[in-house]
């Protein structure tokens, strides 16, 4: 469970998140909002990539401020741009990087990489240069690189923004099928129909919080 207790984040003098207080217990949670509403800041709070100026964020009881490493071993993070996330030259090497902290033996490491590649239907790309793949393939490789470490929670920060519609759907379907808890920050509200809960951020505050069929129309309302 992620608990956000009266969290405020300022970037220079601007208040990006303003006194947020909520618990995240659902299996599938979507976060939507306009540009500059604080969505990405909110996502980065959840695994301690960003620390609050006031308040606390805890994951399964671990404070992101004092137990950052333990939090990050539980919470995986998928970034918007896979090029920033894929570090090693080939797909298999990049997946191995995610297992470095575990210091696994060679055979166990290779088996786990092989199983993960198979699970994401990426086996045929194992030795390919990761940076020469298509956008959709890159995002799946980045996702596999996170999931190989078997996090309990996955936070995705606009994972489909740079993708065409077909690849966006493929990536979102893959994310939706994951066994862990998933929190997705996105502009593509159509991907959140099957989610358990949707948070709408507006100027750093939660303006709507509820099931997708309630929260999404309230968010889209003023435009339609």
């Amino acid at each position: 469970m992620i608990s956000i207790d009266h969290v405020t984040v300022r970037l220079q003098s601007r208040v990006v998140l303003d006194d947020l207080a909520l618990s995240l217990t659902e299996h599938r949670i979507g976060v939507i909002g306009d540009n500059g509403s604080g969505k990405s800041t909110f996502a980065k709070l959840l695994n301690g990539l960003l620390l609050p100026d006031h308040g606390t964020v805890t994951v399964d009881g671990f404070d992101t401020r004092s137990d950052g490493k333990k939090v990050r071993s539980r919470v995986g993070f998928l970034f918007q741009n896979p090029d920033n996330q894929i570090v090693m030259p080939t797909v298999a090497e990049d997946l191995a990087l995610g297992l470095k902290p575990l210091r696994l033996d060679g055979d166990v490491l290779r088996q786990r990489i092989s199983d993960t590649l198979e699970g994401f239907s990426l086996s045929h790309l194992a030795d390919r240069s990761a940076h020469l793949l298509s956008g959709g393939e890159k995002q799946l490789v980045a996702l596999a690189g996170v999931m190989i470490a078997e996090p309990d929670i996955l936070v995705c920060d606009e994972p489909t923004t740079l993708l065409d519609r077909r690849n966006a759907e493929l990536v979102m379907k893959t994310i939706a099928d994951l066994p862990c808890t998933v929190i997705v920050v996105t502009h593509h509200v159509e991907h959140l129909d099957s989610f358990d809960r949707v948070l709408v951020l507006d100027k750093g505050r939660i303006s709507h919080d509820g099931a997708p069929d309630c929260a999404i129309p309230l968010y889209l309302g003023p435009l339609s």
Partner: protein
Amino acid sequence: MIAGLYLPGDGWIHGLSAPVKLGFMFFTGLTIVVISHVSVMVLLTISVGFIFSVVAGLGFKRLWLSTRPLLIWVLAILLAQLWLVSAEAAVLISLRLVTLVWVATLVTYTTRLSEMSDVLAAMCSVLRPLGVNPERIAFLIALTIRLIPSVFDIVRDVRDVQKARGLERAYIAMFVPALTRLLRESDALSDALTARGFERWGDKR
């Protein structure tokens, strides 16, 4: 593209461990320096070329592609040696250069960067008592190699944008956005590494 130099394959040279291949490169380098007969050097060059293109299965085209950028330098050295020393010395030193580049390219084409960095980490492990984390040193080097093409990509993108705006020779105008992008990308990379557990490397379990 440097980061993409490894070429997947299932030949026996691909199957050799990175320390063996690096050892082969070191040994060949030493041998090349010791050889003083042109005929022996020619034989060694042909052997390395054969291993590169046939045994490793990389083909003659790649052998040529790895030699082509060298030709201007080889020619310059050849002419200088011909003028200053002798024809034999000119041929010997030119063949040494070509052979050494072929061996290095062979190792690079058939060895994953992660395997290279593992060897480097093992070599740096003697520094562990001094508080140095060898995995981090090795990763730093691997990451530097991997980022070279990314830096070129960013500079090329910025140059294209400036060209489109009619600022082809405005180098200062190019420098600022390129630097801004590089700093932004390095921030994003830093976040990604943190999120992927880089800070836990070397932790005692």
